[in-house]
């Protein structure tokens, strides 16, 4: 936090409005932030100087923004912010196209402020220095070394603000033999072992059908920023966090890594991976089975012998009473045959019916839901408030993702859509950095912002 606020007895603590701690130095016409938040979140008062893009970076600061931080996203006016390729790429709403219309971008940046800085110009660098001086954290997910080349590596940041929290996020990390290698989600997943661990025997790697490590890299980045800010809040000490997305991914294998380092049992072995089965802990049957209809599936996890009894009761056919299936050892010994029988039983039934009947009997089961089914067909996600409609200045109403958490005192909120290019220049350069309207107009005219 920039200034430790005084705690207040009773009720909600009063948190100073965004940027207002510096407004005393400014003429009155700068004193109205264009975007006051209705409810101060848990991170009210935290300001992030944000260079992130794509999902691996922007996804992290989106979480912080939803929790109340003032996230100021910095983009290059010369390239129209296209370093972040998601700005102008599909999916699009209706007929909207171009750099304000990218649906993924508009999801990952909802709730943030947006400014432009042409860092080829010294006046833009001066503005950036001023912004860093009043920020709590600088965040980025460029390739290693880019911030140094811009003149804003960690040592330079520290000279501007000694207690800055600087968090960099790239695939291979800031140093090491592969520091120059480039990466994005699918590459991080491949190199870390995650792709390998997702698939069926005698098939190529199935991997993750999306950039799982962009999501998860963003989660680790958010955690890192907040842990470092918490440390600074209590000690006054800033630091640099070097987040290598592939290393974060390398911690996500559960017991598989130790099975090799302790037991010398590699994951690359005959019959593996087989990630629809459960080897750790062992369960059977455990898999995804075809149901009635085109590309319809149900997931079933029989955790133990009691689950099997319940499962067999629901099935109610003679084969389910076979002595071999009563104990886990028997089910594992003939797992392929058992899976065939289960698949024959599910194959003529609706995935919803199978899922519901098994859950009612106490057995973990669930239909494999399509996006349409889980977003607009599953009342549970709507009841949670998971899909949020926010106003976007160019697109109109935009549907974005919320958070899967609820806080009893300082719940999250997403007040608006992603910023259009330079949408908040006036507020940030004016109200936050104290530049007058004429100066801002001149900077704009000369391509500095």
């Amino acid at each position, binding site marked *: 936090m920039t200034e430790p606020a005084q705690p207040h007895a009773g009720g909600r*603590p009063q*948190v100073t409005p965004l940027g207002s701690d510096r407004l005393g130095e400014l003429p009155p016409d700068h004193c109205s932030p264009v975007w006051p938040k209705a409810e101060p979140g*848990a991170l009210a008062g935290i300001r992030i100087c944000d260079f992130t893009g794509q999902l691996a970076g922007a996804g992290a600061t989106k979480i912080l923004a939803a929790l109340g931080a003032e996230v100021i996203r910095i983009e290059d006016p010369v390239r129209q912010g296209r370093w972040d390729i998601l700005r102008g790429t599909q999916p699009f709403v209706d007929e909207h196209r171009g750099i304000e219309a990218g649906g993924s971008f508009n*999801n990952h940046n909802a709730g943030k402020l947006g400014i432009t800085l042409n860092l080829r110009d010294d006046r833009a660098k001066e503005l950036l220095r001023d912004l860093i001086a009043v920020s709590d954290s600088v965040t980025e997910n460029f390739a290693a070394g880019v911030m140094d080349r811009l003149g804003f590596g960690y040592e330079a940041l520290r000279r501007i603000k000694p207690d800055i929290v600087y968090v960099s996020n790239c695939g291979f990390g800031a140093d090491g033999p592969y520091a120059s290698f480039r990466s994005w989600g699918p590459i991080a997943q491949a190199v870390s072992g995650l792709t390998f661990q997702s698939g069926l025997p005698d098939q190529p790697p199935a991997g993750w059908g999306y950039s799982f490590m962009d999501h998860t890299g963003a989660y680790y980045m958010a955690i890192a920023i907040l842990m470092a800010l918490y440390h600074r809040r209590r000690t006054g000490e800033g630091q640099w966090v070097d987040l*290598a997305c592939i290393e974060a991914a390398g911690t996500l294998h559960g017991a598989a890594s130790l099975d090799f380092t302790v037991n010398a049992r590699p994951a690359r072995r005959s019959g593996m991976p087989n990630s629809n089965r459960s080897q750790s802990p062992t369960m059977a049957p455990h898999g995804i089975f075809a149901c009635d209809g085109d590309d319809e599936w149900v997931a079933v996890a029989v955790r133990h012998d009691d689950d099997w009894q319940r499962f067999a009761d629901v099935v109610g056919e003679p084969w389910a009473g076979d002595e071999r299936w009563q104990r886990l050892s028997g089910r594992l010994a003939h797992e392929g045959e058992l899976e065939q029988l289960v698949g024959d039983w599910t194959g003529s039934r609706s995935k919803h019916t199978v899922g519901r009947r098994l859950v009612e009997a106490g057995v973990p089961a669930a239909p494999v839901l399509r*996006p349409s089914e889980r977003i607009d067909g599953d009342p549970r996600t709507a009841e949670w408030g998971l899909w949020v409609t926010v106003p976007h200045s160019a697109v109109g109403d935009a549907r974005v993702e919320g958070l899967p958490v609820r806080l009893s005192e300082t719940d999250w909120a997403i007040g608006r859509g992603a910023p259009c290019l330079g949408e908040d220049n006036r507020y940030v350069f004016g109200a936050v950095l104290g530049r007058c309207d004429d100066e801002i107009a001149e900077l704009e005219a000369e391509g500095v912002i």
Partner: protein
Amino acid sequence: MVALEASAPASRRPLDGLRVIELTSERCALAGKLLADMGADVIVVEPPGGSPMRAYEPFAGDEPDREQALWWWHYNTSKRSVVLDLDGAEGADDFRRLVSTADVVIEAEPLGRLAALGLDWSQLGGASSSTAAVPARPSTDAGGRNERLIWVSITHNGRERPDPPATDLTVLAEGGPVWSCGYDDHTIPPVRGGGNQGLQMACHYAVATLMAALMWREDSGRGQLIDVSMLAAANLTCEFATYFWLNQQVDVQRQTGRHALPQISEPTQVRCADDRWLNTGVPPRRGPEFAALSGWLAELGLASECPYTELLKLGESYEQIDILHLDADPLSAEVFGAGRDTINFLAERLGAHELFVGLQSIGLACGIVYSPEEMLADEHFVARGFPVEIDHDGTPVTYPGAPYRFSATPWRATRAPRLGEHQDLLAD
């Protein structure tokens, strides 16, 4: 070879001084680990007989033994263990005492269980009066509540909704990830991504939110309840599947080893000469990339053998091939295809590691499909100190190390506790 962080002199960590009580569960173990490895004093409460995770395969030496479960080892580093029977009066009392000394409770109990025992958030946490003075840490009011307590509850879909039987597999199936993972051939079942990600997603959100609540408590002096939905966390970890539906109301379809999209895309995985796979990323598009690929072919002595050499030469004249409009430009399509074919040509002749390092060294992003143990052994991650040795009573064991490198307050882990190893915590 391996960084010795575990045996280095104790250094400061960002969560030093923070006490966390974790009720053991596979659903919240990672959350506790992330906090413990960064310095929090995480006390994991196990039932008599031990955490269910102590019975999960595989075991060290393949000997079923509650102290040898590798799952337990992995997810419970840096924690301390006490055994409490919450169903008994003594255990419940001990739990209340522990909570009164804590900053954070993390639990994933079946809904209603703790409330029935008088041990839930509503009974142990939360300010009892809106006019209460801001407490110093930790503090209990007259009713025995700890006003500074932050309570993290991880459930299937929040504390207000039904709590069906569920596992990692079923959460990933109904939460969306499974739909996007699998193969071009849709007669093959879609695939659960490995590594317990359905459990881990919720833990990641839990920890990020908890850290924000801790920041707020610094000023307000007050804790709060954080209600985490596993189903919602999975729904928010599906990338394009979600964005295509939210924006265009179209369902994506799964494709082998690459992004699920509304349309079918080109393959991005190639099997190399050593039978390992490479994710080829995006093949060359810019002139210098074609030039670099030609140069490397020549270096390898394969230029004359490669049937695409002439087309690569042509590629050198492009500033950037517009891959979105190849249909309208057959020559560009042929040149772009030659880049991809050249990578496939190389894959028939080189091992995956040589191809990976070679392509990356000339500026073409790609990734070898490593198994977890191969990643741990790779020279890059070894040089960065990612694999760490953790001491197990005199025997070093190699673990995946820090997910992030903090310059001033680095990650550090110690071995998971034995059952009830820290029972004497309850003595005073």
